[in-house]
């Protein structure tokens, strides 16, 4: 049996900052963020990849950080909820979540927001039904689903306006 005392080098970019340490291989990316780096915005809702509360971006793609061992993604760029607001300005998705009342208790919210940001990148935004389908990996027990879809659509509309503005 491998005891947790065995340490393996871990090197990551987290919200643009370099991180390196020797870690037991059993440390998940989620527990690294929450318990060792005090980045508690990323939430633990099941630790089984079933709820999406721990969603972060790894190299721009949404992943469930509870299913990734921290030492298994050397040099990866990790973006968490703490890393998307810039210069004191909220990311449009964060603002849209507030405006659309897209949360209640707030616990699934960071995961929903990270997932929604990646969703826009993936382009699964052609209808409310499509957004629902591709957001279904993020559970919300308060049932803020309508608000979350509204928030995503607001950001989609904002992007379209911005693109139209650039084109013109």
């Amino acid at each position, binding site marked *: 049996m491998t*005891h*947790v*005392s065995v340490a393996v080098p871990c090197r990551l970019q987290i919200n643009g900052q370099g991180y390196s340490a020797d870690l*037991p291989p*059993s*440390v998940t990316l989620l*527990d690294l963020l*929450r*318990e060792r780096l*005090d*980045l*508690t*915005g*990323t*939430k*633990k*809702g*099941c*630790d*089984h990849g*079933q*709820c999406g*509360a721990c969603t972060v971006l790894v190299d721009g793609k949404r992943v469930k950080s509870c299913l990734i061992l921290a030492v298994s993604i050397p040099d990866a760029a990790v973006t*968490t*909820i*703490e890393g998307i*607001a810039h210069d004191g300005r*909220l990311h449009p998705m*964060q603002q849209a*979540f*507030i*405006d659309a*009342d897209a*949360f*209640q*208790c*707030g*616990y*699934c*919210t*960071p995961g929903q*927001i990270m997932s929604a940001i990646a969703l826009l990148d993936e382009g699964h935004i052609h209808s*409310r039904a499509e*957004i*629902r*389908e591709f*957001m*279904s990996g*993020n*559970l*919300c*027990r*308060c*049932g*803020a*689903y*309508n*608000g*979350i*879809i509204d928030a995503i659509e607001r950001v989609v509309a904002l992007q379209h306006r911005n693109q139209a503005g650039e084109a013109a």
Partner: protein
Amino acid sequence: MNVISTPVGQSVSRIDGIAKVTGQAKYAAEPHPPGMLYGVVVNSPIARGRIDTVHDAAARQVPGVVEIMTHLNRPHTALFEKAYMDGLGVPGAPYRPLHDGEIHFNGQPVAVVLAETFEAAREAAMLVRVDYERWPHNADFKVSLHQKYMPSKTRSNYVPPRPRGDAARAYALSTVQVEGRYHLAPEHHNPMEMHATTVIIEDDGAFTVWDKTQGPQAVQAYLAGALALSKARLRVRNPYVGGAFGSGLRAVYNVFLATLAAKMLKRPVRVTLTRPQMFTHVFRPEAIMDIALGASRDGTLQSMIVEGVTDTSRFEHNMENIVIWGLINYRCPNATADYKVAPRDTYTSSDMRAPGAATGVNLLEMAIDEMAYACTMDPLAFRLHNYSDTDAMHDMPLTSKALREAMAQGARHFGWQRRSMPPGSMRDGRELIGWGMATGIWDAMFSPTSARARLGQDGRLHIATAASDIGTGTYTILAQTAAEAFGMPLDRIDVELGDSTLPQCPTEGGSWTAASAGAAVWLACLSLRRKLIDMLARSKNAPPWVKQDTVTLEGGILHDVTENGPVSLSLPDALSLAGYDALEAEETAKPGLRGKISQMRKARFTHSAVFCEVRVDAELGTVRVTRLVNAVAAGRILNPKTAASQIRGAMVMATGMALHEESLMDERVGRFMNHNFAEYHIPTHADIPDMDVLFVNEHDDEVSPLGVKGVGEIGMCGTAAAIANAIFHATGRRHRNLPITPGA
């Protein structure tokens, strides 16, 4: 600006929004005191028996493990069961964690591994082996029904049914009869945040306990009693709660174990439950209701007989009000009901969102739909025909009941008049379309609550009460209430909640917080405003125009109009002139004499009418909810935006109740086996359509000081029935068991 002068009633965005969307809001498992140990709980895999031997040598070998706490080595705890009693008032002998070697339920904690890292604690927990002496158990609800009983001491909030007329005779004489057994599966709350506790030891040795709870003062009282700690040296905090829905009404074992371990090792401790462990404590009880309805040919209800049973543990008598709702809400000359609890060897069932009514209203409203069809009457028309303007069970008038208006507005919005009555008559291709409706009812409660308002030199108004915002919007509506009562812009108000040291507030639940804490904040702000003007008027330095009866406070500025024209004074200047750095007022909102008399003479409820469209695949039997409309009569709505979210959220949970949620017991081991989100299905994005919430105008200045009834539970009541009734309308098949799954 209008928005500033009347903030109550505006759709204000949540004031805790920025903290929540940036990840800065701190939940129970998130403070990180230096030197903190991680506790991982080991649970019993058997339902009844006694611990024979604990083998922890291998676990202790794991580097980083500091201690393995069991009933054998734990520090002193309270001896008597009474010391473990909590505010929920469930009669019986409360479960005492690690008290002795006896096992009362599967999943009972038997050990806590404490280690320097989470990974070490988790690994060691897997290495703890426990030998048990196994005793026979029963975890089968059907078997426990043979032992059903009425507790000799009933739960404090239990409402005994009051029969009227001769229901049995009237039933026998009724030309139309509907009779059936309805069933609700047990459900688990499953808030997204798992129950967790972080115990911080302050410099003076006092404990600050961050716990996921709905009542910080209740947890403080519980820990003081159960662990024999001084209340003065025990502070419980829960500024942010990641949902609870009732799972945080009673202290969960993690808070007891984390605090006990901190006491034992004199180090900070965190214990977070796993998702499977979330199925080892409270759940909504399994329930059966035998309902017999009799009516005359014209659709007039003549008789109602309701007999209900819910499960409880072997050591406590949890009770719910499931059988009374139809007797209250329908005009029916003959009605009777009976209620019992059935014991099984599990943890004690407990309150989950709209406890009692979620079960009783939904199952009854399914039977009402059956009766409407038996009378060949439109289900909405049937309900209007049997409408009661009073609390028909207590023969009491109501403070208000705008259910008729809710039915009319909901029906109009939904387009109910276009419905064709026969089941299976609204097909669209391979999909069968069904339209169903139901009504909802929930108590409108008010409990004595205190709040403090403080004006600081920075010109900000600080509101404090020991309420909990579990996602309900409490921070926001209290800020709105304070803004209106004091005359202050919303952005100059801070609200502090979730701390046992703050003014007394009952545990959050039952939809009473908005009415109760709202009233307390209102009073405290009026009191502070009076005090400020008084102090100022008495001060030699103050301008002569400051007089209690003429001065106004608006937009955070004192105003008056003198013969020389308008004058004003900022709040920081007012404080300085009065000679204070800060001024505060604390008030308690209580029913008062008039309120008490009103409570004796009039009943108070929230009502709703829910309309649903489902589409059922004719070949596969899969059900999609495609439209939901809920028209709610809940008195004054403080914030339509957050209130509508409350209603929608409950409708989502009710969709789970109707179609998905079911905790599956393996009776052989006495454990809920589907203890994760892959197997216990809560609704996802894809399951939920756009839902419309309408708030019906309902002016009621008698129900509570602010005319507020509360909106936390009402969305659960009726929604599951509306879905079930829509499935009948789509398919012509009656389902009397919830959830309705394709295999059913």
